[in-house]
């Protein structure tokens, strides 16, 4: 499908068109930072910040809400159990390439083995409108190293690149094609293609590589660093607060809890985000905790990001968005850890 162009004069019309199809979420200011929030109607278009640097929580919160009801139960036995698989048509506007990569990783994780009906229902009802980004949000980002500064093939419906007075619109799915089938979109011409190329060239120059090695060596470098002292050093300041995993776009661990009503035999089963960094995460029946020490929990997170998720899904477990570093009160850095392991071979 050939790219099109959307004039910024028509941006409000475009949002109205999205609103016609269901809910719309887009980046808006939250104090000095940004968050994806619902745009309730055309009069809220001015809240949308297409110039946002990065959101606090990634868009995963829309497919895997922080707290979600899985089923309700009544009395004993299966007759009273009702599953609550819910979804509604939703467009997410302004998803940066690293977050599109993360969504592709989640898609793979939740479709493997026992397919997760709750995630997939919401994901299936979602239209993704990606947004190109020219420079890293801050010094914590290393998306270029993780090959996540360009969108994944097929990982979006539309993908917008800001060319000043207009957006260059790439189309990757039938849903995207249908959305762009309107006179607000015009075919891209030579000047538009050139503009897009110049944008991407500038982007590549801004997103410098920060790891001394190619990331294909990351899983093996982690392997040889398993007993390194760097984990202990990094964990010294760790609060086991789970912020790093909650803000991570590829973390998907959850806990399942039953909430009882006062009558003590009806209630709801809920899942909430969980974190491998919390002290109670690896406690199994009987009270045994197989990851009791902070360093081993921290190492586990870094191994999941750099190795395990990739081995499990074939997709990257870390997209280099830097959120876990930015939001860690103790300033513990996965980037620094990935840099340090380069020197661990034979150490």
């Amino acid at each position, binding site marked *: 499908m050939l790219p099109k162009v959307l004039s910024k004069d028509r941006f409000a019309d475009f949002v109205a068109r999205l609103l016609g199809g269901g809910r719309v979420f887009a980046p808006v200011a*939250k*104090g*000095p*930072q940004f*968050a994806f929030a619902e745009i309730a109607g055309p009069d809220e278009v001015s809240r949308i910040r297409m110039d946002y640097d990065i959101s*606090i*929580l990634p868009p995963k*919160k829309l497919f895997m809400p*922080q*707290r979600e009801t899985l089923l309700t139960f009544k009395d004993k036995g299966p007759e009273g159990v009702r599953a609550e698989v819910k979804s509604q048509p939703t467009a997410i506007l302004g998803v940066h390439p690293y977050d599109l990569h993360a969504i592709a990783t989640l898609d793979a994780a939740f479709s493997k083995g026992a397919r997760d009906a709750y995630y997939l229902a919401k994901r299936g009802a979602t239209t993704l409108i990606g947004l190109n980004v020219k420079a890293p949000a801050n010094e914590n980002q290393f998306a270029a190293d993780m090959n996540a500064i360009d969108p994944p093939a097929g990982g979006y419906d539309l993908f917008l690149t800001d060319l000043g007075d207009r957006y260059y619109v790439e189309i990757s799915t039938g849903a995207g094609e249908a959305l762009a089938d309107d006179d607000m979109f015009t075919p891209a011409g030579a000047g538009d293609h050139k503009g897009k190329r110049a944008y991407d060239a500038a982007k590549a120059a801004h997103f410098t590589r920060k790891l001394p090695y190619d990331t294909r060596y990351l899983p093996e470098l982690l392997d040889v660093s398993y007993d390194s002292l760097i984990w202990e050093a990094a964990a*010294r*300041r*760790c*609060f*086991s*607060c*789970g*912020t790093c995993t*909650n*803000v991570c776009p590829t973390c998907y661990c959850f806990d399942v*809890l039953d909430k*009882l*009503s*006062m*009558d*003590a035999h009806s209630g709801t089963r809920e899942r*909430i*985000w969980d*974190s491998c960094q*919390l*002290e*109670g995460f690896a406690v199994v029946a009987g009270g045994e905790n197989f990851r009791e020490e*902070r360093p081993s929990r921290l190492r586990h997170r870094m191994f999941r990001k750099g190795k395990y998720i990739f081995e499990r899904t074939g997709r990257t477990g870390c997209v280099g968005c830097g959120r876990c570093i930015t*939001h860690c*009160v*103790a300033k513990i850095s996965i980037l620094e850890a990935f840099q340090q392991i380069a020197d661990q071979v034979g150490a």
Partner: protein
Amino acid sequence: MAKPRVAFHDFTSCEGCQLQVLNCEDEILGILAAVDIVNFREAIDEKSEDYDIAFIEGAITRDSDIPRLQEIRQRAKILVALGACACTGGLNVLKNFRGIEASMKTVYGEAAGWYETSAARPIDAVVKDDAKVHGCPIPTEEFLELVKSVLAGRTPQIPDYPVCVECKLRENVCLYHKGQYCMGVVARAGCKAWCPSYGGRCYACRGLISDPNNKAAKEILDEKGLTIQNVLDEFRLFNGVYDVAKE
């Protein structure tokens, strides 16, 4: 099966936690259907010394409190500490650091000598408690979770992780990103990050988690420019019973 009989008792407190119980509006009828409340000074006149479950609000601040609490412990099958005052001594413990005599003078002036007092202590410094509902005041949801769990005979789901978890789930901008500081990194969650969600910092009114990284907390507070005294004051406000507040 007879409905369990429930009593509320208060020691040194502001009675704000009992008010929180009355604030459980939507569920109060459900509670009344499931239990008999036989002693609740905030809400009913009736008084009985025959009960199964005792909720204790307030800290122990006088030696004469001790036999009263021991008697409640003997009567109750299940004893629950309600609120910061009861769980950690709460704000009351501040007077232990200021000096008890000096505190008495500030509060009662010349009449200080007429009143009996001792160092403030949590309930479990005197008798064993079976459960704790933390917070100043307690969150209503946690009180309800506890009541339901006791009635169903299961362990209540009380968080043992930092307030930061709930703070991030609400997508708050961290106070450390606003040039401020916050005790949420070591405080026990369960309040849905009440204070940071409304612009304030966390004072750890729900006590500390079981494995707080106090050393790291002191380090980052120091990096924020707090003096050693400021840092100790942060811990002492609600958590004076812990060793970390003493050094």
